[in-house]
């Protein structure tokens, strides 16, 4: 019994992951390494990991219970989320609010008001469902095309780029359904924002 245990542990627990690492590094080096996006030698993020954006000239992501693991270093040497609460280290997930939890409705209400204040041209009922609900992972890299579209007037105003330009950037980073059937249409927020930053000459 001990023999079987040890042999299987080595085969399944060591040999297999090492073999797979070797093969994937050989065949798909970019994906195996985590799909990091590098611009001019600087790594800015990963293609499939969302980021939190606060500036008016960037496309905003969905709310995240873990703020996409984005943090700043405070003067006291501690790490903080953008909203000032302390960063407890890497994590993922959601607040797990039940549909009947009053904390959920409260959060959404606050977010709606904040969003309308920054996007005065948008009507309350036009805000798409996904934009103000938190994702399951807290790392969702996407928003729906509708959620991107209603942010465009704000981005145009704050960035100084033309509406055409922003629309093009969004369209370029929109992915359709697989074979037109499977999944949903998505806009990759990080990729859009990297391009906006480049056009604005920030990056």
């Amino acid at each position: 019994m001990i023999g079987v245990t040890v042999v299987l542990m080595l085969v399944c627990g060591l040999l297999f992951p090492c073999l797979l690492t070797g093969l994937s590094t050989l065949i798909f080096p970019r994906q195996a390494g985590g799909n990091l996006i590098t611009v001019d030698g600087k790594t800015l993020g990963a293609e499939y990991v969302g980021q939190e954006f606060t500036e008016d000239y960037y496309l905003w992501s969905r709310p995240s219970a873990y703020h996409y693991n984005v943090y700043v270093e405070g003067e006291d040497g501690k790490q903080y989320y953008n909203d000032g609460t302390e960063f407890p280290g890497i994590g993922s997930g959601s607040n797990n609010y039940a549909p009947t939890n009053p904390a959920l409705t409260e959060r959404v209400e606050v977010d709606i008001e904040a969003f309308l204040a920054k996007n005065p041209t948008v009507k309350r009922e036009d805000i798409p469902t996904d934009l103000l609900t938190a994702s399951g992972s807290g790392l969702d890299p996407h928003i729906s095309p509708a959620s991107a579209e209603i942010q465009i007037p704000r981005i145009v105003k704050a960035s100084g780029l033309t509406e055409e330009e922003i629309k093009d950037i969004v369209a370029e980073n929109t992915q359709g359904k697989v074979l037109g059937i499977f999944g949903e249409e998505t806009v990759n927020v990080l990729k859009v924002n990297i391009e906006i930053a480049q056009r604005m000459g920030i990056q």
Partner: protein
Amino acid sequence: MLQIVLTIFIYLILVIPVGIYVYHVAAGKHTFADPVLNRVDGTIYKICGITPQNTMDWKKYAVSLVATNGVMMLLGYVILRVQSIGLFNPNGIGGMEESLSFNTIISFMTNTNLQHYSGESGLSYLSQMMVIIFMMFVSAASGYAACVAFIRGLAGKTKDNVGNFFSDLIRITTRVLLPFSIVGGLLLVWQGVPQNFSGNVVVDTVEGAKQVIAMGPVAALEIIKHLGTNGGGFLGANSATPIENPTILSNLIEMYSMMLLPGACVITFGKMVCDRKRELAAAAISDGKNTAISKKAHRSRIVWLYGREGRSIFAAMGILFLIGLGVCFWAESQGNPALADVGLSQSMGSMEGKEVRFGVAQSSLFTTVTTSFTTGTVNNMHDTLTPLGGMIPMLHMMLNVVFGGKGVGLMNMITYAILAVFICGLMIGRTPEYLGKKIEGREMKLAALCIIIHPLLILAFSALAVGTPEGLAGITNPGYHGLSQVLYEFSSSAANNGSGFEGLADNTLFWNITTGVVMFFGRYLSMVLQLAIAGSLMKKRFVNESIGTLHTDTMSFAVILVFIVYIFAALTFFPVLALGPVAEHLTLWA
């Protein structure tokens, strides 16, 4: 809607060749990979000192299974406790605390994969590989081995030989799980799942802040997590994270990997039982007696790829699955009226806790699949599901027969089938027979015991949790949903599923110990009892089909089976479901 239908349609096509292959492995027949794998197996047998020809009766088989699992747990526990050593630990993770290690090790050995830790901060890469990935292989292989032994018992070629546990364990690992994992793992990497040994990466974001991004041997864990219907994620948020499940294709790959082998199990069952009938027929030919029977048996093999007995079981499971899926998808599409009240449009359905790339359709499909096939991986947060949408996964874990995990679901369904022939026998005055054997007092007692353990574990422990302050302390959502959180946790543990209403603050002594105990008994008690049923049936003589025999290979039997399952579920679980999800639904839509 169309994507759900297509996903299932493709599944029905894929499951047949996989089922045939698995049947060949289980029955020890020739497969195309034999020239290579026979050598691999031979080497492993030699190192471990196994003689595959040594046959076992059901008792010896069960003891070998439980004892080997025990040794694996012990070794795994030690690794979890000392994982802080510098080996494969670039993120400097510390050792795991005792009660959490206890819970984790039972959780992974029993194929449950309930996680009271978060992978990012709780496990070093050494533990992820040598404990988690290792156990994902062997717990799946153990469950499958038990199922194959059970089927051999039912097919009844000999009086006391159910096979050799060790050779089953190894053959399933080397011929099914490992090759499928390598191919599937590569597909996942192609779609963007990382597979490396480097530490987490810290990047400077576009806005000048910092972001930490998880790395590690994710794809290796990801593929066996689904193939073995295990379900424990590399990261806290499991397959909802775009790191574990970046695209719609990776989502489909993961879904098919968890659906294929449990479905294949049913086909294996159908074919192995079919074998017996064919051999009977062949014997009849050589006696020169009845050629009509042999012709019939021969035709049945060609016409029914699933095997006739397997077909009715598969149909019953399929009906239960589709009903659940329909309700879940409908409930999620309705959205959350509480959010509509504060002015947030619900036109996309209920999106809290879901990923944009999956939307409501792929999320509700994944949710139903993961709890029906008792995997426990999630691509959305089940705690945030609408009340009825969340009731479906809970219900399917309470039933624990809708395909079910590696092998175990089939064993449960057959226990229900035995119950069904017994009840029908009573109602229409026919002799209860299943697969050509008389069902008598001993089998019925074992089956009843087997069916009662599951609700007993769920309901008794839920009562304990809501009756003690330690249990109540875990609840994080107010109102009726709090009860659902408790109920879900124990249903998931008893069904060896492992998904959770993740809001539950469950990394406490109370929750670690109670769920650990539930997972242990939920797995091994029912497994041993079911093997005992098989052991008892194999000793009996085959009875000839007579006019009084209830046919179990028909669609009407499948429908009866569905009703029996629902009736039992309603009798045991309806009161508590009414207090949890149903009450929550009524308040939400009032």
